[in-house]
Every structure is written in C-alpha cells, then in structure tokens.
C-alpha cells in the first residue's frame, strides 16, 4: 500500500484523513451560523451540530491507531463515515421542504433553502469510507479524490449561482466564483474522463491554486459586506448577510484536489504519452 513505508508527510491518505477531520470540525461553526437563521426551530437541526462537534474526537482517536491497531482506525472511520453519509442524506431530505419543489420556478429555486448543503457531510463521509476501502497508492484512489473535489466544485457552482442570483448579481464581481467553479469543473472533468499527461495535471493544479485565491478574495468581500450590514448586531449581519464560510469552500476543495492531483502525478500512467512512429 502506497504511503505505509513513506514518511508521514508523503502519505496522501493521511492528508486526506486530516482534511476530513478539520472539515467536519469546522462544520460545527458553519452549521451553528446556518441553523441560527432558523433559530434551530426544528430539533433535528441540532443533529449535525452535535455530530460535527463529536466526530472529530472519534476520528482523532482513530488516527492514533492507524499504524499499530489499524482495525480500530477502520472501524471508527467507517462508523463516522457512514454516519456522516446518513446525516447528509437525511439533511437533504429535510431541506426538501423548500418551496422550490412546490412551485418549481426559477424564482423559487433562487430563493429556496440550500437543500444540497448537507451533502457536504455526505461527501466527507464518502471520503472517509473510500480512504479505508481503496488502496491509497492506486490511480483509482486519486481519481476518487478528484471526483469528490469535482463534486464539491459543482456544489460551489450551483450555490454561487443561486445565492448571487438572490442578490441579483448586484455587483459584477459576483460572477467570478460562478466562472471560477465552472473552470475547475472543466479541468477536473478531464482528469476523470481520460488519461492526462503530467503537464495537464500541473495546469490543473495551477487552476486549483487560482481557485483558492478566488475563495480567499470572496471571503474578504463577504466579511467586508457583513461588517457594513444593516443590522445593529454584527452577529446578525453574519447570520443573515453573506455566508462568510461559503467562499472558503474554494481553497478547501483546492487542497483536496491538489492531494488527488499529487497522487495522480506520482503514478506511472501519468508519464507523457509517447506515440511510437519508427523502428518497430
């Protein structure tokens, strides 16, 4: 298995594991903000909050057992992973009460609750499960990571489009994340659909680094907008204003994508394609 004899910093599966732990932990704060809009009206809204707060503990424990008692790393990982998938898919079902599915108009789509947001949990759950079921030294593992990254950017595309449409694309700069995530999807799609040469992997990595920049810029813009928000209380501005964490998905997914591209680049199939034209 690739990585087991490598130094820890050269083990992609370990970086992916850390990625998942940090993301689930960070979702605690994100969910607290998101469900504060609704003031946790439905008791079920506490479930993802509690899950996000407790799961990282289990995963950290699992991580400590990854080398010596790997079975516990697998068991705990599967437990948290499948729970995350359940939380995510249940969340999508509960978010489906959104008016869009009643009216099915573009207006109602634009203003519906973020019904696909809980898929973040499902995605992280799949990452954890996949990390335990697929050989991290294989091309397949890299491609799964890239698939999850592309899924994340599809989410970015849909939500930056819908959320900024809710603002009427009042500022032209609001089109930037829409275009940026479309570009990311385009490049990641190719890495999944076909064998790509090393230079294309490098170009895709550069695209992802740019995506990270887009996200950080968006975070600054959202924060500045919220600091100038109409509410008297700054906290209310952050709850009801521009979602402060949403742009950070870009650098977040860029990190995951770079891990996948790094692994893909290290494999044999990524050598430049050579067409034999003479001698044989």
């Amino acid at each position: 298995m690739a990585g087991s004899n490598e130094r820890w910093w050269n083990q992609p599966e370990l970086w992916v594991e850390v990625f998942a732990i940090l993301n689930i932990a960070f979702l605690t704060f994100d969910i607290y903000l998101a469900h504060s809009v609704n003031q946790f009206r439905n008791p079920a809204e506490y479930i993802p909050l509690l899950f996000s707060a407790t799961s990282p503990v289990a995963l950290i424990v699992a991580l400590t057992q990854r080398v010596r008692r790997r079975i516990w790393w697998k068991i705990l990982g599967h437990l948290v992973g499948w729970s995350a998938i359940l939380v995510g898919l249940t969340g999508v079902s509960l978010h489906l009460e959104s008016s869009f599915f009643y009216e099915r108009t573009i207006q109602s789509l634009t203003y519906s609750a973020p019904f696909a947001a809980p898929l973040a949990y499902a995605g992280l759950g799949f990452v954890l499960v996949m990390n335990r079921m697929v050989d991290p030294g294989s091309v397949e593992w890299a491609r799964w990571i890239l698939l999850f990254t592309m899924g994340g950017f599809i989410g970015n595309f849909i939500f930056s489009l819908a959320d900024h449409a809710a603002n009427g694309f009042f500022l032209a700069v609001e089109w930037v994340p829409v275009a940026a995530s479309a570009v990311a999807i385009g490049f990641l799609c190719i890495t999944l659909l076909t064998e790509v040469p090393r230079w294309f992997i490098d170009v895709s990595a550069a695209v992802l680094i740019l995506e990270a920049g887009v996200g950080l810029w968006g975070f600054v813009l959202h924060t500045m907008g919220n600091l100038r928000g109409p509410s008297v209380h700054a906290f209310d501005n952050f709850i009801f204003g521009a979602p402060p964490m949403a742009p950070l998905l870009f650098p977040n997914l860029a990190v995951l994508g770079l891990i996948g591209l790094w692994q893909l680049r290290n494999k044999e199939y990524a050598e430049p394609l050579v067409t034999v034209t003479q001698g044989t």
Partner: protein
Amino acid sequence: MSFRPVFIAVVIAFALILAAFLLNRARPKVETEQPTADLVRATGKCAECHTRTQYSVVHEFEMSMHARKGVNCLECHQPAQGQEKKDHHGFVISAQLTPGNCRGCHENIYQQFLRSRHSAPAWAAVYGEKGLTPEQVSFSETYQPGGTRRPPNPLAELEGTSAKTSGCDQCHSVGKPNTDGTVGNCTVCHTRHTSSVRIARLPTTCAQCHMGPDHSQIEIYEESRHGILFQAQEKLLNLDAPPQTLTTRDMFVPTCATCHMSGINGIGVTHDPSERLSFYLANMITDRRPNYAAAQARMKQVCSQCHTPGLVERVYAQAEQVVQTTNQRVQKAQDIVNGLRKGGVLTGPPFSYPIDFVFFNLWHYDGRTSKHGAFMGGADFVQWHGNYPMLEKTVQLKSMAEELRRQHGRVK
C-alpha cells in the same frame, strides 16, 4: 503536448458559464433590476419565512397588483422618513406602515386624500385637534373649513376611552395623525397586502364605516336601484379594471366609488370625494359647500355617463327640496332646545337631559338619513327613516319642552 484535454476542459467550463447566464437571464427583470441589493434579496427572502408563519399575508400579496408589477416586500416595508426602524433578520424595516410608505409611489393620491374629509376632519370629528400639528390643522381647514379646528366630540368624551378605541376609532382613524408626520391610513379602504382596487370599489368596503343610523349610506344604497342592480349583476362587472381606463363597459352599475371617486369614461380619478359633493349633508343645518357649483357639476358629469340630463336635474331638484325642508324641521327643533337653554330650563353640559338626546337623534340620525336618502335614491329612508321620525321627535320635543318649563316654573 496535446491540445485536446485543454480544449475540452475550456468547452465544459464555457458551457457551464453560458448556462448560468441563460438561467439568470430567464429571471424577471423586475426582480433583478432593483436600486439596491437589499431590495433584490427581499423579493423572496421575506416570503421564505412568512409563508410558514403568516401564509395568508404572503398569499394576499401574491394576488395583488403590487406583486404583478414587481414591487417587493422591502419597497413598502422599508422605513420612510420619520419612521421607527426595526432590525429584522438582516433587514431594516419599518415597525408601522403609514401613508409615508405609500406616498413614495402614490404622492398625488396622498395629496388628494389629505384635502378630503377622510383625512384630518375624520379624526377631528372624535378627538378635535388632539394629536394633529398646527400645520396639519391649518392645511385641513384650508380645504375643509370647520372640519378640523373644532372641539372633541362631546358624546365621545362622555362615552369614554374604551368606546372611542373600539368604536369611534375603528372608522375615524382613517384620518389619524401618524408619528412620522403623515395623516391617514390607506389600508382602511385598500386593505394591506391585497392592495386591491376591486375591494376598494365594493360597496361593502365603504360600508365598514358608512353605515348605521348616523350615516346610513350603505342601507340607502342597497335599497336604491343602483344597489339592486349591483347585487344582481356584480359578476358581470369588471371590478379589476385599471382606474385610468375605467369605462361604463367595465362598470355599467355604479358602486360608491364610481360616483364619488372613480374616473369613469375619462373623468379624472379623485381620492377627495369632496370634489363632487355640493352640500354638507352631515351637518345639523346643511349648507352649501364652498365649491358648490363646481362640485355639483362634477357629480352631474358622472351621473350623465349613464343617465339623461333631465333625470339628473330632476333628482337634484327634488333632493335640494328635501334638504331645505329638513333644514327647516331641524331648525324648528333647535329653536325649541335653544329656547329652553336661554330660559335657564336646560343647564349644564350637552347630553345632560333626555331632551338633548331626542334632539340629537332628530338631526343626527333622522335629518341626515332624510337628506342622504334623497340624493341616493333611498325613498324609504327619506320617508320612514327620515321625515316620519323627525315629525315624531318634533312632537316629542314640544311635549318634553312644555313639561320641562312646567317643572322649571314650579321649582322657581
């Protein structure tokens, strides 16, 4: 170095961006082309919660012309000048809506309303000048002399706060002074979220207030030929017709609004019914209004949209005759009561004696009903709810006055 993967990647990216543009382009311009980001956001954000908490409000708004024209919640609910601001889930809204919010788009209508008796005079009829600024009183007196600069209603003062709040206020607050300096309440006639012209044209809307023994307009209307035809043919009328293009093809049977306010067949719309009223019929002794001739000409012009000039003139001549005779009867009754006060038989504040109430009912109920009935085609109200009770109460007054003089003579 193969160009193919880059080409395909760029094509996929461009296709997604193009799809995003097309999707956004499909959205109504009235939603996306707003002066501020908050206004765009409000278009659906408010409904997202309020559909769950007050569904009827959102539903009423969705049915309204405002919604069809792309007006969104924040455009009415954002604080106007002088209004208290309220922090509400990321928006700043007005705690209380007044004509200050409506006038942003309907300034002309608000100015017409301010000149009418629905405005400050309606409020002053109960409270006098209380709550009105000197400027508001002065403005109103310019157009409705004697309507605002007056003492509070003595009967209302006697009945007390709860009677005023739950009784008088419910109608007379159509002209209430608001904390932001405006006067009035547009939603009394137009309702709040439906903001409906149709509802404003219904007789039942006016009947919220213009009913009862002291101003029996709805009862008179329902007895009249206009009212009977409306009841029979309401479904055939186009009550939703835009005010600017309303014709007798839309409303070939009149309601209150048709005669008193609507711009039918090109006649100008007005929110000041006084423009077409030539008498102060509600007064104890009816006088001509200052704009008597012009107002009567305007009202006759409305009548002429359906009726021949001969009929119109006849109705006015007969009605003015009723006004004269009613004035005479009320004057006689007043002379009796004044005589008692002059002679020291009646002392103290108004409404201290049963005879005060008999006289009040005579002019305030029966006299008004007789006059309103004459102008609005309510024959039964002219006779059996007007002249006959006036006659009866005159006899009662005389008898009570004699008895009071006799008692006063004995006491002296």
